[in-house]
């Protein structure tokens, strides 16, 4: 086992698949779809191999690979996997094949679609596994290229504009992050996340980058991550992008790419800039709340079902950030307990995973609706779908109730832990955040009522029920939602020691 570079394989196998598909050129659609799916499944398979050899009690990186890459710049090709990475690798392994299955009917150059998708998948995995800024940032930026073309070439009528805004905005944010890390490297001489965090814990980063310089670097990194998640109000690229992208790409964007941002917050910003984050937290908490509340409200106003669900992602990811900011805010203050911080952070990780599953399932369902309606996405174009397609409605309903945090399904556990933790750390913000829960229920049920209930209308007339492929994907995702809702311990045991260690390092009052 130790001889096999497992983590490199996790990243490179999808890329090898991309390569193969690129060589393949104009192969039959079936072969292209099948190959892409096969290579996409490698992540789940290798992720399970990693799971089998993973020791949750070890809080540092496991399966580490470290090679000197660019000696002059002290750049290392450093990969490692801890509980958080493993969780996200497994999530990628689940969401990616589902996303490819959403694009199964696509007959416009499926080989290229598959190649770009696998390229994207590998890059995202690289982000979750790289522990040195240089390769990490390469993966981070590399993910944009295939994403751009997926949206641009297979997206809806506004796909070009949306893809453009998405990519340029995200690169704009990343540019600040790159500058920040250049400055950090210039003073600290390393870009390894672990080494930087260790320096930060000793107060060295603050000494090397005092005053305004440190703040500028922090803000740069923050901007790059904030655009990616996105943190309110850097989210204006998101609704159009999610709405115009093809269903498969949107599933990946919301299921995986949005997690890259949250992951960055937890892996980079918080460990390396704990004091800056603590200082900015009183302000950032309100931005996260802005995402929670305004995200839900804005969703209510949308008439395009995909735009509406896109806002739901803004809302759900804001809970993750709210919990992290509350922990950072409370560091060293009254009210901080290890239990509360641990619960909030565990909730963040769970919410990342659970949102990935539910949002992917919902966008899959919206893709089905869009396809049946010949590209129509207006909420007013539908009615009575449940009468015509009861099985589809039932499976879609599971994802919907998971998204609004119904206990018994997966979404609840993460949100409960976030609220449980955040209450002790920042009761006011936690109380305000409940408005988001109410808003989510309101717009999701309104969507459900208009599209699925009532007399059959518009594209709801004669709406065909699920095909075998759709039933498979939705039923599997629904089963996972139920499984992780009833037995969240299957997930929490992967990262509980890690989170406990994080919480243990906090300065208690």
């Amino acid at each position, binding site marked *: 086992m130790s001889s096999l570079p497992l983590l*490199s394989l996790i990243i490179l196998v999808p890329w090898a698949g991309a*390569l193969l598909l*690129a060589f393949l*050129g104009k192969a039959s659609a079936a072969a292209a779809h099948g190959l892409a799916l096969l290579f996409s499944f490698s992540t789940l398979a290798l992720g399970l191999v990693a799971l089998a050899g993973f020791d949750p009690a070890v809080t540092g990186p496991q399966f580490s690979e470290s090679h*000197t*890459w*660019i000696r002059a710049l002290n750049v290392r*090709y450093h990969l490692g996997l801890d509980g958080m990475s493993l969780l996200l690798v497994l999530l990628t392994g689940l969401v990616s094949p589902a996303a490819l299955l959403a694009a199964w009917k696509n007959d416009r*150059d499926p080989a*290229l679609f598959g*190649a770009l998708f696998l*390229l994207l998948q590998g890059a995202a995995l690289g982000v979750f596994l790289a522990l040195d800024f240089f390769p990490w940032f390469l993966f981070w930026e590399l993910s944009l290229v295939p994403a751009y*073309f997926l949206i641009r070439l297979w997206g809806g009528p506004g796909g*070009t*504009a949306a893809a*453009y*805004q998405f990519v*340029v*905005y995200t690169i704009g944010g990343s540019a600040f992050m790159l500058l920040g890390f250049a400055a950090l490297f210039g003073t600290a001489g390393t870009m390894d996340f672990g080494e930087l965090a260790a320096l930060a814990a000793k107060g060295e980063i603050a000494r090397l980058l005092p005053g305004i310089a440190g703040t500028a670097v922090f803000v740069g990194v923050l901007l790059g991550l904030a655009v990616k998640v996105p943190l309110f*109000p850097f*989210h*204006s690229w998101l609704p*159009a992008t999610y709405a115009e992208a093809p269903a498969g790409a949107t599933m990946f964007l919301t299921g995986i790419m949005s997690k890259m941002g949250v992951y960055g917050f937890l892996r980079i910003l918080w460990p390396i800039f704990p004091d800056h984050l603590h200082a900015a937290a009183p302000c950032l908490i309100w931005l996260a709340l802005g995402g929670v*509340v*305004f995200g839900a*409200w*804005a969703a*209510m106003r949308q008439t395009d079902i995909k735009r509406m669900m896109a806002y739901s992602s803004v809302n759900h990811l804001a809970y993750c950030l709210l919990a992290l900011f509350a922990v950072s805010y409370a560091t060293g203050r009254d009210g901080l307990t*290890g*239990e509360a911080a641990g619960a909030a952070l*565990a909730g963040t990780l769970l919410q990342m995973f659970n949102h990935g599953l539910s949002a992917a399932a919902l966008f899959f369902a919206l893709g089905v609706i869009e396809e049946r309606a010949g590209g129509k996405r207006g909420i007013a174009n539908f009615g009575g779908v*449940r009468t015509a397609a*009861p099985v589809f409605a039932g499976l879609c309903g599971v994802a919907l109730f998971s998204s609004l945090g*119904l*206990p*018994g399904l997966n979404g609840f556990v993460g949100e*409960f*832990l976030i*609220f*449980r933790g955040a*209450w002790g750390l920042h009761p006011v913000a936690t*109380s305000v955040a409940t408005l988001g*829960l*109410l808003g989510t*229920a309101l717009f999701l*049920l*309104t969507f*459900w009522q208009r599209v*699925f*209930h*009532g*007399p*059959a209308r518009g594209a709801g007339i004669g709406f065909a029920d699920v095909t075998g492929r759709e039933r498979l994907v939705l039923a599997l995702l629904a089963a996972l939602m139920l499984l992780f809702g009833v*037995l969240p*311990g299957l997930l*929490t*045991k992967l990262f*509980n020691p890690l*989170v*406990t260690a994080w919480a243990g390092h906090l300065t208690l009052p």
Partner: protein
Amino acid sequence: MITAEQLWLIPLLPLLAAGLGALTPRRGLAVASGAAIAGLVGSFIVSCLALRTALAHPAEHAAYNFTWFALGDGAVRLGWLLDPLTAFMCVMVTFVGSLIFIFSLGYMKEDPNAARFFCFLSLFAAAMLGILISNSLLSLFVSWELVGLASYLLIGFWFHKPEAAAAAKKAFITTRIGDLGFLLGLVWLYDATGTLLLFDNGAGALEAPALGGMAAQVAMFGLPVTTGIGLLLFCGAVGKSGQFPLHVWLPDAMEGPTPVSALIHAATMVAAGVFLIARIYPLMAADLVMEAAPIHALTVVAFIGAITALMGAVIAVAQNDIKRILAFSTVSQLGYMMLAIGVGSWTAAIFHLLTHAFFKALLFLGAGSVIHAAHHEQDIRRLGGLKGHMKATFGTFAIGMMALAGVPFVFSGFWSKEAILHAAHEWDVSHLPLYAGLCAVVLTAFYMTRLMAETFFGKARTEEASHAHENSAVMTVPLVLLAICSILLGFLGTPAHPWLQSQLLGAEVEAHGIFEGAGLMILSIVLVGGGIGLGWFIYGRNLRAMATDKDPLERASPGLIAFLGKRLMFDELYAATAGRLNTFGAAFSDFMDRQVWGGLVNFTGRFGLFSGWFSRDTDEGGLNGGFDAGSAGLRGSGKFYSRRQSGDAHGYLRTVALGFVVLVIAVMLGGGW
């Protein structure tokens, strides 16, 4: 013998039935309904065994706790609890539930989706029983929300009807407003005590060490922590139990099939809020020792209950839909129960909860029998004269009506309502709840007399009513059984022999003469008599001849009756305030997104474009277009693609991708430069 450890069997059986029902095809009504009824009857048997265990040691709170998942150095734990409160409630829910399931066989037999109906009913029963056996507020909350889901599915069972779909959503959202308070109370309690288990060998949240620890803390404005937590948890109960001001969903919920109204919106789910507050009574009462506290949690409970009791009864007077009258009567009776807890007698509340479950289920099923017979006519003005056609329904309905009105000595509602009024009389904080309760006694007797007179007496006033005939035994036998219980149950808790109260409390409650507090009892008997008499005087003496005749009260005071008929305009009030605020918030958020946040980004993009143009030497491709969607720079790439067939563009891209991957892999494998 059933111990706390095996208590999970009680919800499990209906849950399995629900699972089976979900997997049966739509035609499999026999399988789905058979499984549902068998599952719940099985639960009933287990519940009876559990009751036997509990009554052997009524003072004991037998708990079985286990780890749900590890968190930090500890764990999130759940548990089951067996004591007389749990056991009595389980027996009631499974017994009434079974009868309602059986009744549904007849009521729903023509519905094409009836198999699904029984699946949802079983899901509901499982979740409801989950609430009852929980020893952890977390598993209670989980079940609580699942009950909400089942209620949503059942209210909206005829979802092709827009009113049913809207009512289902309204019920879910309104109760969720309360549940947000519940959630915050939950996390606060968790943070303050480190546990959500109620009983845990001295370490539970309801046990002395935790309560003592919290009682000493003050949250804000001099409010004890337990008051804050208690009131937040009470928010959940207000939503679920249809208390003022969140009662608005309950009457609309009558859009669901009538057995659903009987099961969920009369006998069980709406009682869950009362059960919750009774269950956490030690927490609710913990602040009573703090004399200086600005307000006590139970005082709020008492006043909310009193307002609800009176308000529900007042509105019921002016309703014309048989189910809505019963719905508002439920609101009013739930108010009585809350009032009882608030004034310190949770045992009286549970006594009334149990008797009410039987006679209100009876009344709803009776109404269902009428509606089924009269081809879905629900307006009492358009019924009439059913006494002769439907003897069994009439007889049992009359028993239910007298139990609800509190006709003395024979009927159960009399005894349980007496217990509440007696407790309210003893309350030393204020007598206002007692007066509200007494007013509601008259009104209850009055509107139920009106309902009886209009529905069953006189002549049939429409085609539908004249063709009504008695339903089959599958529907009438449950009515008869419920009617028998509506009489007998009262004798479990008379003042002379308060057996039920003693068992619930786990301590001997002092027995009094049957005429203990005779003055109050006589007053209430007079009030009941007055209400029935007045009702008969106005509606019974001159029976309505035509469906379109004006109501006598409406003739006397059209404005008031119209106002009451519109349910005191609560819906209009909420639409004008919270509804508007919400619409405004949504419009504001959307505007900010499109114009301000999006606008700033576009402005930045344009600015970049402008400076690029200005300095000229900037690479045209690098900045093209800024961030704006339709910006000019895109034309470059647009032209680039338009010059080629799309296949060629893809081929080009493929080459790029290929080269790119080769390059990266080569660099990675190659190691150091």
